[in-house]
């Protein structure tokens, strides 16, 4: 007998994994081929670069074992390229699990890598980077070379992070990729929830649903509370245009729209990553691969 999954068994939080090769580019043995592996708390990202240009990348969910996730995501980024691990001249590990990237030549903090990666994706005009990760939020101010000048990390809790959004996707039974759109489907913006703590917000959301609030309204109230919180972090490091958002939540239109409103600035437009561009989720991995190139060249000179 064939079983169809019950509606309750659908995993609404489960987001799509991606992989891309810029096959119009070709690699040769003399090229400086480097890799950046960014093992986050929720997603693992890897980027392969040829002479400092993105060649391929992969994004997948982080498993319970960081070294394993690092290996898997790197092989995924290399899939279909003909590259072998030996061809990679230098590998930099970054992110929450950066010390657990076994093949890395060096580990660098994700702050430095995100600023560098944002500088690559959007260009030298970028000054403020908000990285909304799976379990923390980082507000970064950088100069025209992508060098960090000031930063602040909130890693106290999952409030306002990708993980918090996953919890809400499950609670409200809305697929994670739709959550931003749905949060905007309200006639007027409800007051933000009083507490962004994921554990408490969940019970507060249940209370609002019982009071007769629609899913959209509850989601709007939660998203708004998150956006206000992120806005405060950015103001602390000093908001300066141009402003960009990286990490998984850069794809959450509900968050992006509300942060823009809270700060009174527009983000630089998102690259068309599904068609031909660079996913803002791989900014950290791009930065890591760029550092890998610079460190490799430095080692060759000395």
């Amino acid at each position, binding site marked *: 007998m064939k079983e169809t999954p019950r509606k309750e068994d659908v995993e609404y939080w489960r987001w799509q994994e991606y992989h891309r090769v810029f096959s119009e580019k070709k690699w040769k043995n003399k090229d400086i081929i480097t890799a950046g592996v960014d093992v986050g708390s929720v997603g693992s990202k890897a980027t392969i670069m040829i002479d400092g240009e993105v060649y391929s990348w992969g994004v997948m969910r982080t498993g319970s074992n960081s070294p394993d996730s690092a290996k898997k995501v790197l092989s995924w980024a290399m899939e279909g390229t003909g590259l072998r691990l030996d061809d990679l001249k230098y590998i930099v590990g970054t992110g929450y699990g950066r010390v657990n990237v076994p093949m890395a030549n060096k580990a660098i*903090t994700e702050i430095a890598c995100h600023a560098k990666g944002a500088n690559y994706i959007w260009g030298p005009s970028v000054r403020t980077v908000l990285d909304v990760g799976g379990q923390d939020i980082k507000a970064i101010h950088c100069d025209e070379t992508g*060098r960090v*000048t*000031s*930063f602040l*990390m909130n890693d106290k809790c999952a409030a306002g992070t990708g993980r918090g959004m996953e919890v809400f996707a499950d609670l409200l039974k809305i697929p994670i990729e739709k959550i931003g759109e749905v949060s905007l489907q309200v006639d007027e913006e409800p007051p933000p929830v009083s507490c962004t703590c994921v554990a408490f917000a969940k019970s507060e959301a249940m209370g609002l649903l019982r009071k007769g609030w629609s899913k959209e309204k509850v989601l709007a109230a939660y998203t708004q509370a998150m956006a206000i919180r992120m806005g*405060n972090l950015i103001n602390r*490091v000093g908001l300066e245009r141009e402003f960009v958002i990286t990490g998984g939540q850069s794809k959450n239109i509900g968050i992006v729209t509300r942060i823009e409103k809270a700060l009174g600035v527009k983000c630089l437009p998102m690259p068309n990553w599904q068609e031909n561009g660079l996913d803002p989720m791989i900014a950290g991995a791009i930065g890591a691969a760029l550092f890998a190139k610079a460190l490799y060249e*430095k080692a060759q000179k000395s």
Partner: protein
Amino acid sequence: MAIITHYGYTDGSGEYYIVIDAEKCIGCAKCIVQCPQSTLELVDMLIDLEDKTVAAVTEQQRKNIKYACSPCKPESGKAPCVLACAEKAIWCVWNPR
């Protein structure tokens, strides 16, 4: 150019941050010795492709600053870590709400 790291939190009580400028810090560890709560340590930070040894809040204490720093908070301008630093590389921000 400065490389400023903020460690701390913002919540209902206000905002509190220990701020360290890795450009000014010389890694002398005087702040670390003076801290009554073992909140600080030396770490390597990559600056312009060179590893530099600088002071930082320990991984364990980062989520715990609200409690770890509370004994020094009322006079955060005169916190032992701040007073110990000859380079003026470490300071505190405390804005009660």
